[in-house]
């Protein structure tokens, strides 16, 4: 540090648009929340090898279909962003609509899955594994619902050609929800 005046540096900020930077900070916070939850589950799961028995009652087929649905929705979401950067707003709105429907499909499948499991006697109180199952998938489903609301808002604005940068922001969020599911799926459905 000097007391003398110094020339201005050419550039001081990161070059990341403010909105996108804010979203990344938000996603980092989300990462730690879901990460903390997953860590708790993993630790207790390692302590209780007998949970494998319960985990066998989750359906890897339904879970797999849902993973496919989410992966595809991520594809349509990123395509919508691409369309925005190419100036094809109407195509972007259409792709956002497809993403929205895929998100809804995920939730519908999830509801059927829950119904089936609860009828089978596997409620949230059945065992700690199921408590974790409902907490983790439930929290994830809440994020999907939040994402659907956000996508709807962005779509309405984008139709009028406004706030197009938000397509990217909501996309970043949506991909993170996808990434969380990519980990939840093996944790709850596959690993024995």
């Amino acid at each position, binding site marked *: 540090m000097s007391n003398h005046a110094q020339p201005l540096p050419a550039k001081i900020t990161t070059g990341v648009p403010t909105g996108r930077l804010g979203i990344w900070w938000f996603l980092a916070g989300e990462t*730690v929340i879901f990460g903390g939850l997953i860590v*708790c589950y993993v630790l207790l799961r390692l302590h209780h090898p007998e949970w494998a028995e319960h985990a066998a009652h989750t359906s890897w087929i339904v879970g797999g279909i849902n993973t496919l649905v989410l992966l595809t929705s991520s594809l349509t979401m990123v395509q919508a962003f691409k369309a925005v950067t190419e100036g094809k707003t109407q195509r972007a709105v259409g792709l956002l609509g497809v993403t929205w429907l895929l998100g809804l499909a995920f939730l519908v499948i999830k509801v059927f899955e829950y119904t089936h499991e609860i009828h089978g006697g596997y409620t949230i109180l059945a065992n700690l594994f199921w408590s974790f199952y409902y907490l983790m998938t439930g*929290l994830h489903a809440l994020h999907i619902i939040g994402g659907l609301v956000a996508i709807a808002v962005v779509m309405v604005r984008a139709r009028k050609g406004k706030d197009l940068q938000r397509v990217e922001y909501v996309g970043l969020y949506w991909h993170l929800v996808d990434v969380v599911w990519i980990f939840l799926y093996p944790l709850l459905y596959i690993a024995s």
Partner: protein
Amino acid sequence: MEPSFLRKYVFSVDHKMIAKQYMITGLVMAVLGGYLAYVFRVQLAWPGESVPGFGPVGENVYNALVTMHGTIMVFWVAMPILLAGFGNLLIPLMIGTDDMAFPRLNMVSYWTFLVSSLLLVASFMVPGGAAAMGWTFYPPLSARAEFTGVIWGGHLWILAVALEFASMLMGGINFLTTVVNRRAPGLTMFRLPLMIWMLISASVLFMFSVGPLIAGAFMLLLDRTVGTGFFMPEAGGDPLLFQHLFWFFGHPEVYVILLPGLGVVTEVLPVSSRKTIFGYRAIVYSTIVAGLLSFVVWAHHQFISGINPNLALPFSITTILISVPFAVFLFCCIATLWRGSIRFTTAMLFAIAVIAEFLLGGVTGIVNGSAAADIYMHDTYFVVAHFHYTLFQAVILAMFGGIYHWFPKMFGRMMNEGLGLAHFGLTIVFFNLTFLPQFALGFRGHHRRIANPESFDWLADMQGLNVLSTIGSIGLLLAQIPFVINFFHSMFAGKQAGRNPWQATTLEWITPSPPGHGNFEEAPVVYRGPYVYSPPDSEKDWRPQHLPAGLEGTETAP
């Protein structure tokens, strides 16, 4: 166009108004927290007597009092005033921008915080009373309502804390994005005032440490409401898991509220000693090191909680190592005074008191940090005295210092120095009278959170110290009266402050007092570091950050 009353004072998106909203809400909560402390201190000094202004204190009421005192002081006083209040007020002003990056998010953040405060206050009025599980909320005590008899108070506590975290996360995102992207031209990271460094370090620490606890709070809420067993051993859960999650957050949280307080000190010291801060980079790096270390020390709160005893030693070593970066900080502050020209303004007195008291808080931390000594000291009044000597000074004393220092930027007027001096003297005397005896009580083995020290024979001959401490705490509360008078009187009738009453160098002092909408009349450009006081090549003993080359010596004040 003049904004409507609602837009200007209630649903404001202006960072200065939001800062005032945070501070006033925090001060109101501080009064509540102080009142709770008064009630249980009287109970401790004269057990069983009816407390004037409250009534008799039952045992569960006592537990609720200490729980809510801790919760309120950490989450509803320290965080909103120091982090959110000073952060909102100072970040845009100090980095030379017109507002936060996301003004509307900022407003949402305050309103979320206000709702959380109301929920917390409401928990006193629900059947069963407020939460009585200790501010650390350890399960299984907190995981089942029947263990304490508190049902709704506990639910509301978790909800309120969760909302408060959400609010502070939004605020943190705002702070970090603003500082990264909206600094004035020329304001590189190493020209930032140290207060900004402290605020963003605190925000980063909060953001990365709170996640696991939020996950834990979801689990705990389900345990309480639905009856799951995430933390109940009979269901396969583990009570220690929550303690780990809590303290993984809890230790960085200490620095979240400590660092902004130290930031106030680093701003006030150079101004009032007319001398550049000693070791700017050393302070920045030691803050970063302390922040990093704070993520790997959490188990020192759990030495005797049943954790694997082999873990204690590594955690004890990392804990004790933390004394090094803080020693660097304190020594740099003390070295700043060397060969200065010290003016004893009220703000300066408080800043010096922060250093003096923090020294005692810091060295007593070594006793707790040593795993072996902690076997004896854990959960005694020694710990209580220790963390009040670190946090009371960082939160309350630094807050007062900050308010006296930046009052012109909040209300355009100066606070009264005479009343300030009285406030300072009484606060320091009674603060030490309250907490010094508690070190002795801790040595005696007086454990925490008991409503009646007379139930244990070996504590009987130390009861006089409890009385002394209570007298101190009552005096400490009364000592705030001059401040309240000063605050409201100066707000309306204080001496008009010019732009730069302290002849300070950082950017907030080139704005009008109080700054108008948009803060700066013309966007500032920064040419130098933040603390150029008494430069050797000038007659003037201060040189603002925005003064271009060739104009040195043309500073005018105020």
